[in-house]
Each structure stands twice: as structure tokens, then as C-alpha cells.
């Protein structure tokens, strides 16, 4: 078992949601917050999880846009592909050539695609009651929050398990090699999605397809829990 850094202050998302529900003006958002959220002491194997990935034109939510979203519900035993969802959406800004080579989503693909606002209702419905699982939370959180602000002028908050952050915790001491390690040419442990998966003997996938990345993230969390945690680990230890 690896060494853990002191765990962050447990966020009480159950209470947060109740407060947010009272202030939400948009109906869809209010419904989203009103649905019951698990308490922080719920064991992981009783938590409905939703792997989520958004592909974007860049890294900054203020200046870049979402081009596709993929999500897939799961629990510690099974990933449910039959309930997977995937959308290509039309970004407000132009697609850069870099982002086209990255996601393989082209101008003609998005010409008739819906705007992100049009899929928000379905998205929120799918997310309702679930704890989101992402690899590097800053992207999904900030882009979805921004999209909601643009669409209805309200903020979006939700609990997230960040598989990248879990990897950082697990490999804490090895991530920043000491001067001695660096002298010996030791590289810091990579916590990128594909590299993290390899450590759990998970197969290589084609990267940067939102649904494939969501599936890859769900599998990674199952592997992390099976290897370093237990099904009884409480959600409060992992979420943010």
C-alpha cells in the first residue's frame, strides 16, 4: 500500500447541493441539485459514478470551446456501455488546425452539430445523482461551468473524483525525483491517462475521443480502487 498525503478537507457535497438547489433559477439546474447526493461517508461500492470527458479546442475555458462530450455510468463492478452518451457540439470559435489533428473532428462534422447549450439539459440529466469521475478535473469542471454560465448565467458545481489526482497521491514521493534521482536520470512518474493506465496493465486506447477517454477513465478508477483502496473506502476520501 502506498503512502498517502494528508487528505484534503472533506467537502460535504450533500449539503452543498441543498444550498445550490435553493438558489438555482434555471429549472434544469434546480432539478439537478435537488436530486439526492450521497453523503461523504458512503462506501465507494454504493456510489453511482459517471465517467466524463470533454474534448476542447484548447485549455482555457474563457477562450476555448467544447467540441465533444462523452460520458459513461459505472460502479466498482461494471461499466455500463449501454447507457453511454456522446455528443459532438458546434463550438463558437473556429476550429484550429491543431485541434482538428488532435480530435479528428473537422469543420464538416460540426457544421450541423448542435450547440453545447442544446445538449445541456440531457447532460445534466445524465449527471444527476452521480459523482463524476474525470482525469484532470480542471478541464471538465471549468468548461462545463463556463458553458452553463454562457447559457443560463448560472454556475455549475459538482463532486468529482479526479483519477489524475489519485495517481499523484499514489506516486507522491516518486513524482518529484530527488536531486540524487535526477542525477541518475530518473524521470518523474507520468500521471497522464495513458501512462497511468499502463501501470495497471490496462490496454492502450486511441486518445482524444471523448467517449473512449471516458471509458478509459472509468476503467482506470476501477483499477486504482482494486489496487490501492477498497470498496469500503468512503467517497469523502476521494472526491473534491
Amino acid at each position: 500500500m502506498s503512502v498517502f498525503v494528508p487528505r484534503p478537507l472533506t467537502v460535504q457535497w450533500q449539503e452543498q447541493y441543498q444550498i445550490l438547489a435553493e438558489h438555482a433559477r434555471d429549472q434544469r439546474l434546480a432539478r439537478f441539485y435537488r436530486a439526492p447526493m450521497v453523503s461523504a461517508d458512503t462506501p465507494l461500492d454504493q456510489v453511482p459514478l459517471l465517467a466524463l470527458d470533454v474534448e476542447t479546442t484548447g485549455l482555457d475555458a474563457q477562450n476555448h470551446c467544447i467540441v465533444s462530450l462523452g460520458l459513461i455510468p459505472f460502479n466498482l463492478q461494471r461499466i455500463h456501455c449501454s447507457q453511454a452518451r456522446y455528443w459532438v457540439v458546434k463550438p463558437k470559435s473556429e476550429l484550429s488546425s491543431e485541434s482538428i489533428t488532435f480530435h479528428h473532428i473537422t469543420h464538416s462534422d460540426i457544421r450541423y452539430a448542435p450547440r453545447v447549450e442544446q445538449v445541456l439539459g440531457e447532460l445534466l440529466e445524465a449527471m444527476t445523482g452521480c459523482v463524476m469521475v474525470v482525469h484532470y478535473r480542471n478541464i471538465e469542471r471549468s468548461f462545463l461551468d463556463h458553458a452553463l454560465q454562457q447559457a443560463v448565467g448560472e454556475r455549475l458545481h459538482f463532486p468529482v473524483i479526479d483519477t489524475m489526482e489519485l495517481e499523484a497521491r499514489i506516486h507522491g514521493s516518486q513524482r518529484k525525483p530527488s536531486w540524487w534521482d535526477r542525477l541518475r536520470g530518473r524521470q518523474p512518474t507520468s500521471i497522464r491517462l495513458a501512462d497511468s493506465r499502463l501501470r495497471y496493465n490496462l490496454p492502450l486506447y486511441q486518445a482524444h475521443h471523448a467517449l473512449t477517454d471516458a471509458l478509459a477513465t472509468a476503467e482506470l478508477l476501477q483499477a486504482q480502487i482494486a489496487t490501492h483502496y477498497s470498496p469500503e473506502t468512503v467517497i469523502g476520501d476521494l472526491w473534491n
Partner: protein
Amino acid sequence: MQIELLEIRDHLSRFPPFEGLPDESLDELAQNTEVGYYKAGTDIFTFGSEIKDLHYVRSGAVEVYRRTGELYNRLTEGDIFGQFGLLRNHKVRFPARAIEDSLIYFISGQVFEKLCENNDSFADFVEAEGQSRLKAAVSSQGKTNDLMKIKVRKLIDRPAVTVDISATVREAAQVMDAHNVSSVLIVDPSVEWPNSRLTSVANQAMHVMVGIITDRDFRTRVVAQGLSADTPITEVMTNNPITLQSDDSVFEAILCMLRNNIHHLPLVHRRRPVGVVTLADIIKYESQSSLYLVNNVFNKQSVDELEKLLPDIRATFIRMANEDASAHMIGRAMSGVGRSISQRLLELAEQELGPAPVPYSFMALGSMARDEQLIVTDQDNALVLDDSFDAKLHDDYFLKLATFVSDGLAACGYTYCKGGIMATNSKWRQPLHVWKQYFNDWIDNPNPEKLLNSSIFFDLDSIYGEAELVETLKDLLAERASDSPRFLAALARNALNRTPPLGFFRQFVMETDGQQKHIINLKGRGTAPLTDLIRVHALACGSKAQNSLDRLDAIAATKLMTPEAISHLRYALEFLSLVRIRHQALALTEGGDANNYIEPEKFTSTERHNLKEAFQVLSQAQNFMRFRYPYNAPQKPRPSVSQR
């Protein structure tokens, strides 16, 4: 909902029994799959527990145990397990445990049952076990060898060429010219796909097709009507053309083209155009049949012309392999081609040299005589001359004849025999009485060393001239061999020189080739020792048959071996030959040279499993032979012994 779970779908599509499923079934399968991760050492299910899903190893390794705890099977990427539990009251029969970190796909019982109901080959696969699976693998081959089964998408060698609906006649013609095609599809990017919001749309070819225009249309609808090159393409195209699903058969395509009198048929995958098949494609495809090839051989007027058939011979071979023809059929067809080329060469030689001074037979030896020739093959031949032959007077003629044929065969891809077993060698260009002496000497004074290089003469057939001459030798061999235990023992001993590549624990024992790849010599360690073994038994039975399957029939008639042992040999030979054929066809398709060396690592686990089964059959049969024809024990073989 159309969601493409590409990683799951693509992986399933590469492994049996899913690899043969139609696209629709694969999509449905991927969408209904569940996924779970198992750490090394964890149980996946235990004995007697309820099982609801078919399990598929996406990555890692799983061991399946018998009730006693004994290891039943070890499974890796692409293997399935749990099917026996699903087929028998949904109770686990063989518990399973992950022995490496494993990612498992779960396919629900309902989907599994539906697949079994709708796909015979899927049902056969999941219900078969062990050698019965090998048997199923072989018997499923023969059934699919016709135009009804071959998917029309096989005829397409390029993606659909399309133009936008806004194009002019000139632009369409320019696109056709640039791609060197005789038709172009017109697509409308503004038509929304059903569910387009939910599918990932990857390229332009996925737009909805609204029309087609062909070379002929340009003539009749544009030029003949005096229309300008700036006419919108929509005014002259054929609207909503007749299409066929890419999954449909070639036969279906022929019918469709005949019924509608069209020469260009767009193929679609669901509604997405994937290509156009033309009448010329179908004619070209048909013309590669071996029958056409054999007819063609006899029209050739020179060695040069025959040589030009080489690509056609290869194409026929590849095509038969791709059409899942049986190894037996392919062997017969390729031998037939080889025989007709030899015959044509002899005709041409006689035209040049004049008629033969004495009667003769041109004799094929080895694989051609057995009708088991494949694409990479030496020429093994000899001349049996009438006893009126006088070397001083006639040998000059026969040497020229032999040289003409041998050089011609070499030009057509049948390389010279390294062992010199060719009619150009004076030792193998002899009158009948000398040949009788050869055969009598081999039978009367056998020793393994002497017979090592002459066993090829025990597969013999006349392919041109006086067949009687060779028949006399066949009779002599068949009559005398069965009464000559020392001869049979010496042959058997040689047949045991090459053993199957299996280790003590049934793992493959591999050789390393020049490029450090781990390989198995499929001919040397598989089909050749099998045919050697079958030959020994056939000679012991006094059979004159040459083809290995015919020989097995002859052996079966004598009760020398049990019917089970015979059928195992039959399937093993067919299977190993098929793997060899596929391997060679693939190499030729990829522009490489065909050889007999396979890399088991590149095979699916089912194929590896079946290979092991087939090698196991050879190994068991060799053990039986060792005991049946004991060397150093020159008494008559005991006739009543059966193989267990």
C-alpha cells in the same frame, strides 16, 4: 441510440466467434457490453454461482479450473469463457480467476442467446470444445465457398469517389478524371443524418448520397444533348440510385445489376456510401477462377506466354484462399494448373522437337502427384520410357524434351528441384525395366538413409503420354510394399524424423529465423510429416491412392486404425494445410514471398488452440506408427491392432 464504442467494437471484431459477425450485430454487441477490471489473483466467478454474462478477456490472463481445482484452461486476450455455464442453467461449471490484471467484457445472456440463434457459426463456436472445435473449424470452411457467401465489399478496392451536390458537370468530370473512375457519387452535405447529433461523423464520405453519374451518362445526357459543361450535376445525374448493402453477397450484386440493367452499383454501409462496384469488377473477379485459368493455359503458344500467367495463378490461389475453399480443393486446383502447364509445355516441346521416337510417360512426383500442390513448389518429375528405348538413339531427344519442360516450368514459377529429381537428370530418365529395378531395390534392400531421398517416388502419377508405364510402377509398389515390413519400417522411421513443434506441456517449440522471429515450419513440422505418415499406412494397406485423403479412405477400409483416429488425421491435415494456405495467400496479397514459416504469436488464441490440437493429433499418430512398424523387427505387421 447510435453510439460508437469504437475500442470495444474493434477489439471484438478481431476475435472469434465475433470476427464473422455482421456490422450491425457488432455495433449492438459493443453497445450492450459491460466492462470490469480484475486485479491479479481475484476470483471472477466461483463454482455453482449464477452466471448471467458471457465473459471476454480484453486484456490480461484468466485461468479456468475444473471442480477438482485442476487447471482446465488458461485464457488470454480475445478468449471467451462462461459459455458452458450460460448454455447449462446459468450455473458456473468452471470457476475462473484472473492471474494477471485483467479487463473483462461482459456480454449479457440475452445478447448471447440472440447471437447463438441468428448465427450458426457463432453457435458452433461456443458449443464446440477441444477437437470438436477443430472439426467445426474445418467443416465450416467448405460451406462458404460460393458467390452467395462472399461479401460484395470484397470487390471494392477504393473508397467512394464523391462530389458535392453544388458541383457542375465539368467539376464532376474533373474529379472522375483525377481518380480515374468511371462513375462518381453525388452527396448532399445539408441532409441531416438520422441521429447525426449522436454519431461521430468522421469524413465527407459519410454524407447522404443523392445521385450517381457515369461515363455513359456524360455521353447520352450531356454531350448528345448539347448541354454546357457548366450545367449543374443535379440536372443530369441519376437520382437516388439503386444501392446494395456492403454486407450483401457478390451473387446478390450480380442479380441486382442484371435485373436493373446497370453497370455501376453503389454500395452502402447503412446509408453511408462506401464504394461503387462495376460490372467489370465482377467479370474480373470471376475470370480469376481456376477453370478459366486452365482453359487459358492451353491457348498459350509459347513459354513466354505461359510465364505471363504467373500473376493469374497467384490471384487464383489468393482468391480461393479468401473464399474459404477447402485445402483439398485448393490443392486439387493448383495441381490441376501445374499439370496443365506441364502438359502444354510437353505439347510445345513435341511441336518443336517432333514426335517422340518411343512411347513415354512424363511422371509427376510428390505434391503434384498427390494433388496437394500449393503456390510455392519445386518441380519434381521424371520420364518413364518404353522398354524399346535405346539410349544411343533416343536419349538426345528425351534430354531435349526434359530440358524444354523443366526450363519452362522454372520460368512459370516451379523452381528446379534442389535434389535433382527431374527428368533432366539421366538417372530419372530411364526405361520401365530400369524403373522396376529401382523400386524393387528400394523395397528389397531398405534402409532409412537410402529411402530418405526416394520417398518422393512413392507419390507418383502420369501426367502426359502413356499412363500405363506409370501405372505399372504404382501396381508394383502397392503389391510389394504391404508384404515388406522392413521396407515399411524404414519408411516409418524416416517419417518420424520430423516431429510436431509441441513441448512436454503442449506449448509451442519454436525456431528462430534470421530476423529473430519465433517461427514454426508448418510444412516441415506439420503437413509433411502427416503426409509421410499417411503414405506409410497406405502402402501397408496395399493402396494405390496418391492423394492423402484418398489414402485415408483406403486405410479406413482396412480397419488398420479406428475411424476416430482417421477422422482426426483428416481434420488435422485439412486444418494445417489451410493455415499454410492462408499464410501464403496473405504474404502474396501483401506483396511478399510465400513461405511455410508462421509466427504463432500473430494468431488468434483460437487458431493457436486449434494448431495445438492438430499437432497433438500428429504426435499421437506418430506414437502409434512407431509401435505399429517397429524398426529392427523384420516380421510381418500384426494386422489386428487398432489405434486407441
